[in-house]
Each structure stands twice: as C-alpha cells, then as structure tokens.
C-alpha cells in the first residue's frame, strides 16, 4: 500500500511539473533573460524573476544618477564651448573686416 501511494505521489508530482513546464509558467533562466531584454515591460507583466546572489536590485540607481548629472553638465559645458566658438568667430570676422577696410582706404 505504501509503495502504491509513493508511486502515485511521484506520478502526480511529475505530471504537475510537466504540465506547468509545458504551459511555459516556469521558464529557463536564459529564456527569461532573453524575454526581459526583448521587452522589459511585457516581461515584467508575464514573468516573475528570482533575485540571484546578494544583489537585490538589477538596475543600479546610483549609476543612473551619476550619468544623469554628468550628462546634464556635459550638455551645459558643450553649449558654453559653442558660445565661446561663436564669440571667437565674431572676433575673427571683425578683425578681418578692419583689415579689409584699412587695405581699401583711399
């Protein structure tokens, strides 16, 4: 009797895991990674992913913040550089204009 119960339990477990696996509810790690990279929003709605290792978060907030502030300063400094170039071009044109007027003096 015990042997029958053990065999039935084993069969039920295999069947249950097989059914879940066939429906795709448990995906392999590589399949989950591929789905997550393809469409993170859809992946989040369709897949529950386990945290692996001591890291609790995959998205590094500190790095994103550094990139945001660094990028903002790069844009501002880039614009200042552009303003400097425009000013220098004005100076060059003014200088060329003065020389040209001098050379055409009667």
């Amino acid at each position, binding site marked *: 009797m015990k042997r029958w119960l053990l065999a039935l339990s084993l069969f039920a477990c295999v069947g249950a895991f097989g059914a879940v696996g066939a429906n795709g509810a448990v995906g392999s790690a590589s399949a989950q990674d591929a789905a997550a990279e393809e469409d993170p929003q859809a992946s989040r709605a369709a897949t529950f992913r386990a945290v692996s290792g001591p890291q609790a978060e995959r998205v590094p907030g500190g790095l994103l913040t550094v990139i945001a502030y660094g990028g903002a300063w790069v844009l501002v400094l880039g614009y200042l550089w552009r*303003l400097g170039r425009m000013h220098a071009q004005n100076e060059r044109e003014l200088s060329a204009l003065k020389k040209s007027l001098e050379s055409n003096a009667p």
Partner: protein
Amino acid sequence: MALTTPSSAPSTPAPRVSPLWHALAAITVALFLVSFYLVFEVAPVEEQMGLVQKIFYVHVPSAYGMYVGWTLSAVGGLLFLWKRSDRWDALSVAGAEVGTLFAAIVLLTGPLWGRKAWGVYWAWDPRITSTLLTAMIYGSFLALRSFGAAGQAEKRFAAALAIVGFPLLFLIKYSVQRWSGQHPVVLTGQGGGIHPDMVPALICFFLAVTGLAIWLLWTRIRIERHRQEILAIELEAARRGLGGES
C-alpha cells in the same frame, strides 16, 4: 548704419562686458555648489526609488528652464514679426537655443529615472511625447537658423516656428491632467507631494537654473547682436565698394 571709417577702425574698443554679467555668473556657480550639497548631503534618500530619485532635482528645474527659453523665443518671434527689429530676432534665437538645451537635459534625465522607476527608458506617455514633439519644432527652428547668415525670409519663417511651438508648452503642462499617463505628478497637487526635507534642495536648484538660464540668454543675445552688427557693416562696406574680400 554709419560705417566705421578706415582711419578709426583699428582703434575701435572691444565691447565692455557688464560687471553684472560677471556677478550673475559667480552667483550661479555658487548656487549650483550649494544645490549639490543640499541634494547629495541634506535631502533624504527616497524610500521607494532610492538614489535615482535625486534625478528629480535636476529634471524638474530643467523643465522650468525649457519653458522659460521657449516662451522667450516665441515672444521674440512675435515681436520680430511685428516690429521687424533684429534685437527681437536675437531674443528669439537665444530663447530657442537655451530652451532646447534644457529640453535636452530633461529628455536625458527623464529616461534614466524611468529605467529604474518604470523598467524602461522610454514610454509614450502624453507629457513625454508632447515634450519630444515640441523639442522637434524648436530643433527645426535651430536647424533653419544654422544654415549660415539668415535673410529676412528665414528669420520670418523661424519666428513663425517659434510661435507655432508655443501652444505646445500648454500641452506639455496640462497633458498629465487631461490624458493622465504615467508621468509623476508630485508637484501638481495631485500626488502626495515631496518630503519637507527635500524642499530646500529643490528651491536652490530652481534658483541656480534660473541664474544659468538668464546668464546663457544674456550671453547668447550679446553674441547674436554682435554678429548682426558685423553683418550689417559688411553689407554696407560691400555696398560702398569697400572691403570686397570680407
């Protein structure tokens, strides 16, 4: 326009920069230093989002700088079409450039925050989409004006673009209320607001961005006015048959 005579041209003094311009630059730098201290040392880390929430302090004031720049561009464009004075054209160009600079900061920092908060860099939310659309309009303004010396037709067309882009600022502002979307609304009175300890950092950043926006507009207008004056002298010289090489 009175043309500088050859004998007096070499002694023309360089235009003086106002001491106020230097003072504003110094105050703006100081405000940014204080802002960074307040953002990273004083303001608390947000419970849900952690460090990435600190992007908020540069994102929101930059959006305000974007509104200021583009509004001045539209005002300059309107007054240029009315008065046909180059000084209003200079304001329109400066406003479009400064507004687009701040829009670039907004469109850079927003997705970086969204990556953490939403899981994606970009969402076709009404406010984000309308901001991108407006940036494209003012971007086309700048593209049009970047084709060398602008004639009257280009200036008028650019002024019209600046005016066309202006109503979209209201679309950006009210799109969240009208079509909801997923953009945060913590400062609109609809959400729970921000923690009181976060307020000083935000106010200081607003002041710093205001100083930067005014300083950049001032500098850009000066450069544009000088360029307009040089072009006018060149045209006058060419008309009188002087300085053909320039």
